[in-house]
């Protein structure tokens, strides 16, 4: 029983990070039908930002907000430099553009920094544990779960209660109809990229606190997990992306802890198998999205 509680908290911590990344991917898919395979570059850029900042002797408390701001700016810049020019193009063209951005950013770091890993210090408290009613929990998981929850609530409030958020949801549902209502394409798409960058920034901080290293491919794994989570949830559904992230995190932790030592390394393979099975029974993902057809 105690073990299950620990695993669930661990899974929620992991799933929370996936949820933040997946929500950003779903937001962008919603407004422009782009599966953004360059989303992980926000984490890569965050990783190098952390590395450089630690060289100037900054502390995590200062690094954190800077990484988040850098992720937001990077996201907006990528939209402006790359995705704006293929807006309205076929889904395939946009997909290729996102791969292009992914490889260009990666190449820039290889060329101008190094292909090698750069280490930076992890915060001292991340391996601390606290005992709650006989259950020993990682402080890090608790911090991730509470910050993720707070971020998701803030995003929920933004999407439900502000005119910007309502416009964003409208644009995600039917972009042309939203334009007919006077919503400016540039503004709503830039807003979606900024919000998506903000979420990726928060996720990046947690990811980097745990990994403690920067490399040109630092963002690859978190991006793939985020895309998977968004797919599980039903691509384009915002609540589905969050749900997908949490489900993915929980399933991974349960598999890692339950599989016999010999095949624990197959966790990712089994996860993909389960996802394939899910799509056999629910091709639309966990949450069905109603998409209006376009003119």
């Amino acid at each position, binding site marked *: 029983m105690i073990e299950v509680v620990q695993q669930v908290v661990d899974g929620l911590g992991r799933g929370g990070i996936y949820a933040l990344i997946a929500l950003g991917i779903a937001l962008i898919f919603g407004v422009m039908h782009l599966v953004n395979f360059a989303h992980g570059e926000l984490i890569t850029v965050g990783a190098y930002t952390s590395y450089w900042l630690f060289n100037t002797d900054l502390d995590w408390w200062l690094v954190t907000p800077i990484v988040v701001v850098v992720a937001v700016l990077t996201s907006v810049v990528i939209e402006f430099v790359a995705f704006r020019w293929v807006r309205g193009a076929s889904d395939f063209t946009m997909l290729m553009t996102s791969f292009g951005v992914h490889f260009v950013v990666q190449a820039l770091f290889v060329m101008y920094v190094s292909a090698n890993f750069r280490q930076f210090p992890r915060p001292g408290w991340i391996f601390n544990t606290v005992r709650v009613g006989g259950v020993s929990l990682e402080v890090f998981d608790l911090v991730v779960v509470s910050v993720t929850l707070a971020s998701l609530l803030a995003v929920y409030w933004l999407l439900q209660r502000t005119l910007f958020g*309502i416009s964003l*949801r409208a644009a995600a*549902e*039917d972009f*042309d*109809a939203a334009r*007919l*209502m*006077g919503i400016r394409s540039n503004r709503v798409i830039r807003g979606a990229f900024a919000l998506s960058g903000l979420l990726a920034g928060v996720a990046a901080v947690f990811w980097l606190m745990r990994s403690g290293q920067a490399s040109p491919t630092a963002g690859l794994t978190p991006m793939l997990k985020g895309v998977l989570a968004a797919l599980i949830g039903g691509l384009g559904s915002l609540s589905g992306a969050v749900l997908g992230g949490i489900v993915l995190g929980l399933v991974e932790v349960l598999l890692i802890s339950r599989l016999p030592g010999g095949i624990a390394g197959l966790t990712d393979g089994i996860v993909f198998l389960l996802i394939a099975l899910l799509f056999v029974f629910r091709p639309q993902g966990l949450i069905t999205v109603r998409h209006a057809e376009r*003119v």
Partner: protein
Amino acid sequence: MLEVESLTTRYGSIAAVREASLAVQVGEVVCLIGPNGAGKTTLLASVAGLLRPAAGRVVFDGVEVTGWSPDRMLRAGLALVPEHRRIFADLSVRENLLVGGVTQRPARRIELLDEVVDLFPVLAGKLPVPAGYLSGGEAQQLAIGRSLMGDPRLLLMDEPALGLAPVLVDVVFDLIGSLRDAGRTLLVVEQNAQRMLEVADRAYVMRSGQIVTEGSANELADRDDLFDTYLGRAGTLA
């Protein structure tokens, strides 16, 4: 108020609208009728900025607006209620209306919301309901109300009666009548030519991408040849 001059819009190499010209004066209700596939929807979408015309001009209030984006057209005072309504199904009725008023100042937006709810009492009790749960007739009223939230001076409507039960078709035509009586300027695309000619001042008949006839609504309603050749009688095309 609106002048469309030899407008051509293509999908690839196919011209869906060929050198179409029409005009709408302030306070008029003008309709564009014609069989399925005549290019009516394409023409409205080109005027509202959803599609970019290949040739020709659109002039609104004396300003050339050809190729302007839909949000810019709305700010200039021209709104389109699109074909199939395109309401935001996942948003509540109230949120749909708020999005419609996104170009307005906050105080004005609330005023307009009250006006629209007065105009469509069925929506009043359903403001928190997701718009996807509305019936076809309610959804059509929401679609029109949402566009009125932009406070347009010219309202374009694309097939407002499409897919509605006969009793709701009456509601839509009554509504067009009341918008006309309130002094609104309307350009309406409709397949139900007979009904539309009863509420319109003038009409253009479109076929195969071209405007083939125009005239006052009364005059066209009496032209049997037109109905035989292009339009058919009510019920045969609807």
